[in-house]
Every structure is written in C-alpha cells, then in structure tokens.
C-alpha cells in the first residue's frame, strides 16, 4: 500500500512540473510551486517513515503497465528504499521550504520551477524502482532534470561548461550501470530485480558487475577520480538545488550502489571490499584536500561532498568485507555507520548549502575572499551555518561525529578479518579517514572563519542583510536535526535496523533501551558513546563556569580597538584570506598532490610596482584522466574530419575498398 501512496505523491510532483511552466511567470506562482513541493515531499517523508517503522517487515510493491511493455514498471518499498526515501524527501522538504524564501530572488524562475518538482520525483522513483529499466530511466531522468537546473543560469559560460561535463559524466555512469544490469539480467532480459536476485551470477560476472557498479554509481556519487563534474555542477545550480544535488542526489547514487552490490549481486567476494575501501579512502582525503584549496564557498562545499562520499564508501566497504567473511554483526555495524552518515551528510550538507545560498543572496558573492564579518549582519545564518560546520567536521556532540565514530568502531573490528589484503588496507584506510576528518575541521574553520568572522572585505559584504524567515526556518530545522541526531543517535541507529537486517541478515543491538540513551555498538566494555550526556556536560560545565565567573569574579566588559600585538591595521585587506589560511596545509600536502607552487615576484629596489605572490595549483586528476580524453577526442575528430572534405572520387574509392575487402573476406572465409 505504501508504495501506492508514494507513487501518488510522485505523480503529484510530476503533474506539478508542467504546471510550473505556467506558474513560474508570477512570484506568487513560485511560492505555489515550492509550497506544493513542500507539502508533497513532507507527505512522502511521512509515508517513508511509516514504512520504515511501522511496516518494516512488510514489503510493499506494485507493477504498473508502464516502461518495458512485457515487464511493466515495478516499484517496491522495502526497508532500504524507505530509508532512502526519508533522506530524499527530508532533503526535498527542507529545500522546498528554503526555496519559499530563496526562490523569490530567482531572476529566471521559468528555468528552475518546472524542473524542480520533476527532479524530486525522479529521485523518489530511483529509490522505489524495482526493475532495471525503471531504475535507469529514473536515474537518468534525475541527471537530466538536474542538468537543466545546473544550466538554469545559462548566460554564464562556466555554468554551461559545468552542465556539459556533468551530463557527460552522468551518461557515462548511466551507461556503466546499464552494462552492469545487462550482465545481471542476461541476454534474455530478465530485468526485474526479483529475477536478478534469484539468478546467481558466476564469480567473473559478478566481479565485472561490481566494477561497473563502482564506476556507474560512483560517477554519480562523485567518487575520485570520477568526481570532476561535481564541484563544477553543484555550485552552478541555484542554492536549494545545490543542496539537493549534494545532499540528496549523491545519496541516491549511494543507494544505487548499495542496491546492486548488497542486494542484487548475491554474496560478496572478499576482494570487493578492497576496491570499495580503497576508493573510499582515496576519495575522502582527496575530496577534502581539494576543498581546502578552494575559495569559492559553494565549490568548497561541493568538494566536501566528495569527501563525505568517501567516508560513506569506507563504511560500505567495511560492511562488504565483514559480510564476505561471515561476520554479520560487524557488517551490520559498518553498514549502519555508512548509512547513518548518508543521513547525516544529507542533513548538514543541505544546511550548509542553504547557508551559502543565503550568503549568495545577501551579498551576491560566492567567493570567500570577498566576504567576511557576516556574523554581525547575518547572525542567525551565521549560527546555523556554524552548526553545520561543526557537524560536518565530525565534532561532538553533533551528528557527523557519531557516524564517523561508528565507522571507527567498525574499523577496530577488522583485525578479525582473515584476508591479508584487508589487514593492510583497513588500518591505512583508518588513517586516511582520520586524516580527512582532521582536514575537514581545518577546512571549515577556514570556510566559517573567512566568510562569517573577521571584518568585511567588500562593500557587498558590508551591505549584507539577514535572510528571510522561510530560509531561516529551513536552516534551523536542519540544524536542530543535526543536534538531535547527534545527541540521541540510538533512535536513528534503531531506525536503520530493518535496513541492515535485510542486507546483511542481522542488525545492530537495539539501542533505544540502553540506559541514559547511550549507543553501544557491540558491548559496553568495548565502546560506548553518549552524545546526550556529553552535550549536557559541556552545556553544564560552560554554564557553571560562566555563572561562577560572572557572579564571583568580574563581568565587566569594555570595547576597544583590536590589540593585534600593537600593529592593528584598519584595512580589512590585512586579514588572513582563505588562501593564506590554507597556505600551511597547502605547503604540507599540496606540493605533492597539486604540484602547488608559490611564485613570488619582488620588484627591483626603487620600482613602484607591487610585489606579487601567485599560487599555482594543478589538478593532477584532471590532467591525468580527463584532459587526455578530451585531447584524444579532439585529435580523432580533427583527423576524421578530413573525411568530410574528400572528393567524390575518393568517396567512391572508400566504397570500392569496402567492396574489395568484403569480397576478400568472403574469399578467405570460405
């Protein structure tokens, strides 16, 4: 039944899309579209929650006479789908709420409004699809609608380029998935997931499917080195769409991966996890290193999506390893960690993109070097953005920490794995994870510090105004969720239990019953964490200290000029900038990863020209993987293009040659 209700919701979104073409003409219509999206996604979210909690043991499915005619369109909601539906629609609802305010500033609403509900519908459909065709149609439709949203502001050439790279990579991923489904379904075309589950692919086949799934879903999720489109496309879209793309769509990609590898592909081989873990570890660190080098706020956030996808993949890889070695409890822990991070990241990444959107609206700037001091002019945005920063930096007591903590706990179980490759890989991946967490914190100190703290660097930043109440409501809502998921994670982990049960056979121990609402992954003697208590303790300790000091000592306060060791400079240009903040880290990591070079130009004595310091960064992954492809295609097209300018006689020669060759083949073959 649940799937039927959900499909009604999706249908409502689909109907909304063409209506939005007409509605987009007026500001009121914009509100109507986002309002309707909000209501529908909220409803869908409720339905998904119900299916996750109330009906988790009942799988609800339906076959519509659409899609492939002899197959029909299968839709199904099981625990995994329900969980991802929650993620999708929660993100969708938040984005719609945010857009109620944010969307009013859109200067070409008709390029955004029709695609927005269609995009939401597509993401819902991907998660519900239960046959290869419906899945891929929804998947690629999701890419298509988001492409349209990315190029909504098409007058900027870079947006068009971003959209182009995005669409190419998306299609590349879809084709990879298509090939993997081709293998799974075989040449007689049993595309229904049920049939695929029932078939047992050989080891070689399964290996190929795994690689294709890693590539296909990975290119959508933004796994290094297939991430190149992500930092281009996510920032280019309007901010609420960026939030959806980063916060939600990458999760849908993760869903695709989980669905194929954990559900459809049957029992895993141990080495699969090596692939996934290596990919995850590299993705996490590379993502955050890239992010550190950015000074475009939205691009920085996009690179962090890459990082977090890496963290999620580490969780999934561990789960695969444990599953392959028959350690279901550990697998459940790792999978829970990964999926919990999926949820968390969707929350705080949406929040951060909303914040970036609010800043963009208020100042017209995405470049952090042109911001600064916004905490004074946009205090509420600053506050919620800070919450998002703390959460994404995996700092207690917020939610980002909990999922990473769970991942660490899973890593600590891995010495029991028998395979040698994993023995070496897992600790290394653990180190990478730790490194990426620490770098993420550094990066968000930079992001928040440079944009919101300090002094305003441009008139635009001086003139910024606090954003509207709808946007704030959306951000406060997500910030509250970050906190709740951080301090009572047990409920969220319990909610994931049916998912892990369906994928690895068991689930983590029930958490809600543990006293004081702690979470205990395996046993209390082994490890436990209580976000609630830590939060309360910190709150108490801080309050006690404040109270005591103010009552017993001094509470006087004077304002004065900044001290700055006696050298205060009124010019706001003397502050640390984003790139100067990143300089130590760039020197430590960037020289090898980005071939970072600092070129200092000192004018000769007496000259009046200013000294210059230029930083050169090179994207080695782009240079190694993408640029050669572009060059090769360019070369091939140039060479082949001669064929457009031959004479008729030369064309005839081609025909003649083809004939002779075919006759020769015939002569030899017979």
């Amino acid at each position: 039944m649940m799937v039927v209700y959900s499909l009604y919701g999706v249908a409502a979104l689909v109907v909304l899309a063409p209506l939005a073409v007409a509605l987009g003409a007026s500001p009121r219509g914009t509100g109507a579209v986002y309002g309707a999206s909000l209501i529908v996604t909220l409803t869908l979210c409720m339905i998904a929650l119900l299916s996750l909690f109330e009906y988790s043991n009942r799988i609800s499915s339906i076959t519509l006479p659409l899609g492939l005619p002899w197959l029909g369109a299968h839709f199904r909601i099981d625990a995994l789908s329900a969980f991802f539906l929650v993620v999708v629609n929660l993100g969708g609802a938040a984005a719609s709420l945010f857009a109620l305010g944010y969307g009013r500033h859109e200067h070409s609403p008709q390029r955004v409004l029709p695609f927005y509900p269609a995009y939401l519908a597509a993401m819902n459909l991907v998660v519900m699809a239960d046959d290869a065709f419906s899945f891929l149609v929804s998947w690629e439709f999701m890419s298509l609608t988001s492409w349209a949203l990315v190029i909504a502001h098409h007058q900027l050439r870079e947006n068009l380029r971003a959209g182009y790279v995005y669409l190419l990579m998306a299609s590349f991923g879809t084709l990879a998935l298509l090939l993997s489904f081709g293998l799974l379904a075989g040449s007689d075309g049993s595309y229904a997931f049920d049939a695929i589950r029932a078939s047992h692919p050989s080891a070689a086949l399964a290996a190929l499917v795994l690689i294709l799934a890693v590539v296909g879903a990975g290119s959508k999720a933004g796994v290094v080195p297939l991430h190149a489109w992500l930092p281009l496309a996510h920032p280019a879209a309007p901010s609420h769409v960026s939030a959806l793309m980063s916060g939600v769509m990458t999760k849908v990609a993760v869903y695709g991966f989980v669905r194929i590898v954990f559900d459809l592909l049957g029992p895993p081989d141990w080495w699969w996890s090596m692939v996934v873990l290596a990919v995850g570890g590299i993705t996490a660190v590379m993502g955050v290193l890239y992010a550190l080098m950015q000074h475009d706020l939205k691009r920085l956030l996009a690179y962090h999506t890459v990082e977090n996808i890496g963290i999620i993949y580490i969780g999934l890889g561990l789960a695969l390893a444990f599953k392959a070695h028959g350690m279901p409890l550990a697998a459940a822990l790792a999978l829970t960690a990964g999926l919990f991070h999926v949820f968390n990241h969707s929350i705080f990444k949406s929040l951060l993109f909303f914040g970036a959107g609010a800043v963009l609206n208020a100042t017209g700037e995405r470049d952090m070097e042109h911001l600064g001091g916004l905490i004074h002019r946009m205090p509420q945005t600053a506050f919620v953005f800070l919450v998002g920063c703390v959460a994404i930096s995996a700092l207690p007591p917020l939610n980002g920490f909990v999922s990473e903590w769970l991942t660490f706990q899973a890593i600590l179980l891995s010495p029991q794995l028998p395979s040698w490759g994993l023995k070496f890989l897992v600790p290394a991946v653990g180190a990478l994870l730790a490194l990426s967490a620490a770098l993420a914190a550094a990066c968000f100190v930079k992001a928040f510090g440079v944009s919101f703290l300090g002094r305003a660097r441009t008139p635009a930043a001086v003139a910024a105004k606090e954003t509207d109440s709808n946007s704030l409501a959306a951000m406060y809502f997500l910030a509250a969720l970050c906190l709740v998921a951080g301090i009572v994670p047990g409920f969220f982990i319990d909610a994931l239990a049916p998912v892990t049960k369906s994928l690895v056979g068991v689930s983590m121990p029930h958490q809600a019953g543990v006293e004081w609402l702690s979470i205990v992954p395996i046993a209390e003697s082994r490890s436990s964490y209580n976000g609630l208590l830590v939060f309360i303790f910190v709150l108490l300790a801080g309050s006690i200290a404040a109270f005591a000091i103010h009552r017993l000592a001094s509470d006087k306060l004077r304002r004065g000029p900044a001290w700055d060791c006696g050298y205060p400079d009124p010019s706001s240009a003397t502050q640390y900038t984003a790139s100067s903040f990143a300089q130590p880290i760039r020197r430590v990591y960037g020289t090898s990863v980005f071939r970072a070079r600092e070129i200092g130009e000192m004018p000769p004595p007496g000259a009046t020209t200013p000294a210059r310091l230029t930083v050169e960064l090179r994207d080695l992954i782009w240079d190694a993987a993408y640029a050669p492809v572009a060059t090769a295609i360019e070369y091939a097209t140039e060479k082949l293009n001669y064929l457009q300018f031959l004479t008729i006689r030369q064309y005839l020669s081609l025909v003649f040659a083809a004939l002779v060759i075919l006759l020769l083949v015939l002569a030899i073959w017979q």
Partner: protein
Amino acid sequence: MSIDALAGVLLIPAFAAALLAALPGYRLTSRLNVLATFLTFATAVSLFVVEPKSGSYLLVDDLNKVFIVLTTFVSFTTSVFSASYIGHEIEIGRLKPTYVRFYHAMYQVLMFAMNLALIANNIGLMWVAIEMATLTTVLMVGIYRTHEALEAAWKYFILGSVGIALALFGTILIYMAARPVIGEGLDAMVWSVLVTHAAKFDPALLNVAFVFLLLGYGTKVGLAPLHAWLPDAHAEGPTPISAVLSGLLLNVALYALLRFKMLLALNPVAIAPGPLMVTMGLISCVFAAFMLYRRRDIKRMFAYSSIEHMGIIVFAFGMGGPLANFAGLLHMTMHSLTKSAIFFAVGHIAQVKGTQKIADMGGLTVTNPVLGWGLVLGVVAIAGLPPLGIFMSEFLVVSSTFARQPVLVIILVFGILVALGGLFLRLNTIAFGEPRGPTAPAQASYVPMFAHLAIVFMAGIYMPPALVTGFQNVAKLLG
C-alpha cells in the same frame, strides 16, 4: 487485382503526383499535398484492420506493416511542416514558385516509390522502387540550384547510382541462387516464395549476393564508409526533404537489407549476416559520433547523427535475437520520429536565423522559447536520454547484447557517449548562452514537431500492447 488498401497506398500518391504536377498555386497544392499524404496514411492504417491478400507483386506482412505505417505517418506530418516551411521559402524568394509545383509532384512520387519499395513482393520491383526514390530525392536535393546544392545532389547521385548498381548485382545473384531450386521465371524473385526455399539455396552465391546487397543498400542506409552523400544531401536540400531522408528513406533501404538478412539467416550454411552488419554498424556509430564535433552546419550535424543511429540500428539487427531485434525496430521508429521532429525544428530555426551556421545561432531558448526548447527536447531524445523512447531502445540493445559480445557493446556504448558529447556541445551554443543572430519570432507550425516528440515521449513511458505484439512478431520473424 482489385483496388484494396495495398493498391491504395500506391495509387493515391501516384494520382496526387500527376495532379500536383498540373496544378499551379502554392496554397492549394500544399494543402492538396497534405491531404494526399493524409489519405495515404489513413489507407496504411487500414492495413491493420483488413489485411489484404498478398499477390506475387505486392505483399503485406507484419514486417512491412510497421514500416509502411511509419512511413506514411511521417510523410503526412512532414507535409504539414513542409506547407509552412515552403511558404516561408517562397516569401523570402529562395524558392521560385515554378519549382514548387515540381517539388510537390516529386514529393508524391517519392511517397509512391517508398511505399512501393515497402510492399513489393518482388526483389526486382523493390530494387526499382528504391532506385526511383533515389532519383527523386536527387532532384529534390538539387532544387535550390545553389553551388552547394548541386554539388550535394551530384555526389548523392553518383554514390547512389553505384550503390544501386551493386544492389542490382546482388539481386541478380539472389535470383541465380534461387533458380536451381525454384525454377526459372517470376517465382524465383518473389519474396514469399524465396523465403520458403531459402534453406536449399547455394550458400556461396547467397554470400556474395549479401555482400553486394549490404554495400548497395547500405549506401542508402548511410553506413560508413558508404555514407558520404548523406550529410551533404541533408544539409543542402530543403529541410522537409532532410526530414524525409533521415526519417524514411534510410528506413526503406534498411528494410530491404533486413529482408535479405532474413533470407540469409534461413540458410544454415551461408555466412552469418550478423557479423558483417554488426561491423558496419559499429563503424558507422563510432565514426559518425566523432564527426559530430566539428560540424558548423546544423543540418549536417544532425545528418551525422542519423548515420550514428543507423549504425546502432544495424548493430541491433546484426546481433539478432528477439530482444535486440525488438530494440532495433523500436529504435528505428523512434529515430524516424525524433529525427524528423528535429529537422522540423531546425528548418524553422534556420529560417529565423537566416543561416544554417551554428556559430551564428545562440540563446535560442531565450529568443524563441518554443523552438528552442523543442530542439532541446529533440536532442535530449536523440541523445538517448530518458524518459524518451530512444532510451528504451538503447537500453534494450545494450543490455540484451552485452552478455553476448561485451567488447563490441563497449565500443557501441563508447560511440553513444561520444555522440552525446558532440550533440550537447553544439546544443549549448545553439539553445543557451547569449542570444546571437536575428531574433524575430518564427512563423512556424509547431504541431508536427510536438506531435512527434509527444509520441516519442509516450513510447518511452508507455507502449500500447498492440504495438508491442506487432513488434515482437516482427522481431521473431527477423530471427
């Protein structure tokens, strides 16, 4: 032979051709043209209701029913488009009114020839009909009488003639192979008789025959490296003819190829036609995909896209099997509808901008939103993105053959991806970005374009069971 629907689809265009050749005046003739094509279409649809009996000259079966309905439908919508397009051409003086009479007559002759090729039960007759269709289109391609148009027509004519000569040689060889089994005379060229005896034919002769037929009709299909006439003929002729060429004539040639493929497949000893077709298909697909990149003329670009899709279709049929054949048929149908819709859009765009140069167009979704978004939708469809019909066929082609021939399918997928890159690279310039060129509103009839796109859209989501059964029967027929 009494006058039944089968004769109808031949007689109506023939009669209309005579009438249109005689009548002056653009308004009347263009309407008559629409009416005639509509009547033909209606007659073709009636084939589904009452199936006439096949004779030794004309034949109707599941295979050509699909083709003929598609052909008559697209020719009907194209004639609607042509009415507004030619009207504008006359207005700006690009086409002299005297030529219009010729144009309409030729249009109907072309319809006649294509219909004949599709329903001919005699391989000789089929050859004649395709020859006739070629000659008609040659004349129509050259109708603007510019240097470029004449050059394109000449190239088309020479390459087409060589192709058609090769096809004739193949046809003769088929007869030679059939004669010892069936006996001398007409029967040895009658399709329905050939099929029943194909197993006993001399395989060596069949092999040679197929090579010639593949190259001969393959030239008309536009398979690389025999394709050279195609881009220029599309680019330089009037746009309705480009639409008909891409949407229909290529299909007709493909149809002939399929017939002979069936024949060969029935003979257990003869060379398998599949690998040859697959090779040609792959070469066409990948080659055309690369050729998309450096195109400056919008119509020529979409002509190359047709080559690419023909490659995919031939690949699908070459792979064979019920799913791949189904996919091939579906892809062919969808490609016809989509590509003609694109040419409808392109025709009007070129008229608005006064040029076919891509560099002189820009920001079309801003200046002419309906045309612009129509083109975007068309390109999205032709690039194989869902939820439009071509995605479904590409899905089926790739997924059903990958397990059998992974390497080949990867090449195919590579071609599809490269083509997508090429198409969208240009689409970005044409439809988005800062507007360039004249921005006058188009005097266009959008109905044919959106009708096609709507059907393609529908097919991507829902296919009527009747159609599916029909396609499945044909797919089984194709082996």
